[in-house]
């Protein structure tokens, strides 16, 4: 008997047209848990280095978090993973909502897609009945329409459909996979398009078992009430209309202009009315007492929902106001374009036009009004027409194709992936490490447990520390106590902070917990819903697997190193680990490199940022070390970074 998980994964090869329901080994669950952890293992085992990410041999995996579909509140994230065509490294995204729970009730812990269909298809899953169905009549269909048409076709309104829009079909790098109010972006959409898979519809009516029924239910009911009452979890942007934080601190346009005094009381009042005059309600995700999505009905648009910073990206990229985001979001979503990278790519293109690197000829028929220009470029990109065909590669890819100095305007990417448009003054060492080395691609997927800023008032500080039970070790209390200035903490503290932040995301993404009730929310107020002290009990009661804090931490280290090895074997090395040059105005190359060396050492990695053989073996990843040696990535004799002669030379 398997608890919380079903013990089965669905393996579909679209080239062969084969569908297999494969029983998994519970020993793998103990080692890799589920979600991201299991996906990493599958990618490492089954996609050999050198595989072209666009090719049929790449995998696209929808991995349910271990706790999805159970009574654990806030557990609903599906980790969607692949090798990203963007940069050849791990492509990782998370989808909330209801898809994961439905997949569990249909009997599957994950869906593993391989191959490439001869023509557009969709996958229809109803418990054991799984079909690959013709989707040629859905070609070019918008996101909302696709989901509705498939539900009608299957005559099942309670099915959940994860689909791509025209942008995904056309392999646009910024394409997303959407299911209802939830979306998986960050380079997984184009892979679905490359596989000619328009959608996956899933419906399930099977039981998901709980290992210790009374204890599990009692604990989860309590947690639900705690999360409900806790103002520090969920999305503050759902109800707090003071969004001066993003508008005054983040950069507008192509991550270019800071408007430090943009926000005002008048603006806030106006935008508040704009929102609530058009808002239908808040909506949530499976089994979560927070409701983060704002459901908006804008004139002449289909109703849509947005969450968090998705409220800002389009109007900040275009120097407009909130009404522009409300009118463009439903159009962009229907085309299947994300709201994170796409606005940056469009702003980048318009900047190139201003700079004369691109000319009017590249934009035939483009209106002069900036709003209309955004619509124009959305269409061009989604259907890969003209300049849109170039921009479909993302900022970095497009800059490389355009040349003529366009590369200089690609100033906000790390390993080719767009970052949050933040351009600050003084270097923040912990953030330097997170942005440089994070395998989960974006800072929002790495930061979150340790506060962003110190508290200066001694009383408030002590009060904070008293309630801050989430820390894995008392030493974090001490560091917080001595912390006065943002950039000033000992290097070993910076390393440990980065490590803990990262740890919580890897745990969430494997368990299925939403970052908004866990990994992302500790930094604001300290009282996050889940932490290393209560997670083991949840896992034990619900999934019946004995865990304690140390085992959980070891699990994190295992999959963290697996992610690193997956990328190392595909060429990831130290020189690529650089935040954008202008991320901070004041930089110190020597200090940064020393810090990076210390962090690699802390992680048990070599001077080049590769886990040593010993590190891997200690985490039962001997097979990974062997692969790295076989592929010439390691010799097996390496030492950790600080013991490397190159580190010593610099001292």
């Amino acid at each position: 008997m398997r608890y919380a998980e079903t013990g089965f994964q669905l393996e579909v090869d679209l080239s062969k047209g084969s569908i297999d329901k494969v029983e998994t080994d519970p020993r793998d669950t103990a080692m890799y848990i589920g979600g991201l952890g299991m996906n990493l293992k599958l990618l490492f085992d089954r996609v050999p280095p050198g595989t072209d990410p666009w090719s049929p041999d790449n995998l696209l995996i929808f991995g349910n978090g271990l706790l999805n579909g159970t009574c654990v509140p806030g557990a609903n994230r599906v980790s969607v993973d692949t090798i990203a065509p963007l940069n050849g490294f791990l492509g990782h995204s998370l989808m909330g909502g209801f898809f994961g729970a439905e997949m569990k009730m249909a009997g599957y812990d994950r869906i593993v897609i391989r191959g490439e269909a001869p023509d557009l298809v969709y996958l229809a899953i109803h418990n054991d009945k799984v079909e690959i169905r013709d989707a040629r009549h859905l070609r070019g269909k918008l996101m909302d329409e696709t989901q509705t048409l498939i539900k009608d076709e299957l005559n099942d309104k309670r099915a959940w459909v994860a689909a791509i829009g025209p942008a995904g079909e056309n392999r646009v790098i910024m394409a997303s996979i959407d299911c209802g109010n939830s979306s998986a972006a960050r380079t997984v959409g184009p892979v679905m398009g490359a596989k000619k898979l328009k959608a996956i519809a899933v419906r399930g009516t099977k039981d998901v078992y709980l290992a210790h029924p009374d204890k599990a239910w009692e604990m989860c009911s309590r947690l639900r009430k705690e999360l409900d009452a806790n103002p520090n979890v969920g999305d503050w942007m759902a109800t707090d209309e003071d969004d001066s934080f993003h508008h005054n601190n983040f950069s507008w346009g192509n991550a270019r202009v800071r408007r430090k005094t943009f926000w005002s009381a008048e603006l806030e009042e106006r935008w508040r009315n704009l929102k609530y005059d058009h808002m239908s309600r808040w909506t949530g995700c499976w089994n979560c007492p927070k409701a983060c999505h704002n459901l908006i009905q804008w004139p002449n648009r289909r109703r849509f929902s947005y969450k968090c910073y998705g409220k800002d990206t389009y109007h900040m990229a275009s120097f407009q106001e909130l009404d522009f985001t409300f009118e463009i979001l439903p159009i962009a979503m229907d085309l299947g374009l994300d709201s994170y990278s796409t606005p940056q790519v469009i702003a980048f293109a318009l900047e190139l036009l201003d700079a004369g690197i691109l000319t009017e000829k590249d934009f035939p028929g483009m209106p002069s009004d900036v709003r209309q220009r955004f619509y124009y470029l959305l269409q061009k990109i989604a259907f890969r027409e003209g300049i849109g065909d170039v921009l479909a590669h993302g900022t970095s890819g497009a800059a490389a194709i355009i040349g003529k100095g366009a590369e200089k305007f690609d100033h906000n990417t790390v390993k080719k992936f767009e970052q949050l448009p933040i351009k600050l003054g003084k270097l923040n060492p912990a953030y330097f490490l997170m942005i440089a080395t994070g395998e989960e691609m974006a800072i929002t997927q790495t930061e979150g447990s340790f506060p962003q800023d110190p508290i200066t008032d001694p009383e408030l500080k002590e009060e904070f520390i008293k309630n801050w039970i989430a820390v894995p070790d008392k030493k974090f209390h001490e560091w917080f106590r001595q912390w006065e200035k943002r950039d000033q903490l000992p290097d070993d503290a910076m390393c440990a902070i980065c490590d803990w932040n990262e740890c919580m995301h890897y745990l969430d993404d494997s368990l299925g917990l939403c970052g908004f009730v866990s990994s992302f929310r500790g930094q604001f107020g300290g009282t996050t819903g889940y932490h290393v002290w209560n997670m083991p009990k949840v896992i034990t009661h619900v999934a019946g697997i004995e865990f304690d804090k140390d085992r959980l931490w070891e699990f994190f280290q295992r999959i963290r190193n697996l992610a690193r090895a997956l990328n190392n074997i595909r060429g990831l090395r130290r020189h690529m680990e650089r935040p954008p040059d202008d991320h901070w105005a004041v930089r110190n190359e020597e200090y940064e490199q020393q810090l990076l060396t210390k962090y690699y050492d802390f992680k048990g990695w070599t001077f080049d940022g590769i886990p040593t053989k010993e590190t891997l073996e200690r985490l039962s990843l001997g097979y990974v070390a062997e692969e790295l040696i076989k592929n010439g990535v390691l010799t097996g004799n390496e030492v950790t970074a600080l013991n490397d002669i190159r580190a010593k030379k610099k001292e």
Partner: protein
Amino acid sequence: MDSKRKKTKIVKEIKVDTSKCVGCRACEIACSAFHAVPKFSSVNTARSRIMVVMDEFRDIFVPIRAGDYAQAECNGRNRYVIDGKEYDACTFCPASCPSRDAFKEPDSGLPLKCDMCESVPPLEKPMCVDACTFGALTYEEREEEGAEEEKPGDMEIVFEALVKKHGKKKVMDTFARLSKS
């Protein structure tokens, strides 16, 4: 008239405020877990006696509790048009009926009906109401005059359905055979 001789009954009511529903389905989860055997041993929203009809982009969020078993499809139906979209006549119907899958045990096809979470000792409030942290479901008990109505229990509903499906004779034969073994 001697009012004391009039019987009173407790009317249990769940008030649904659809405007507060966010579609989290915690009510469905709680109901299915509570009715699992053993209690809380599984989650399966298809076994829930409450179902949230959800169509986010049309702003439809309607929790519906399973009502009585209908032996046959009804011959007159309502068509709802909400916000310009026309809904299938059965969308908002609480009945477990032969024309659709809703409110039926997924394995046996036997009808499901909300039992107000009757249990010994009684719960303070029904599971779905307790799970709804958004105030979309609230529980009320009030006394009402009038004779206590005889309502069919769970067992009767199940037997009625079996009789309808297989005929009285077959059910009785099976029952007789099972009780001997």
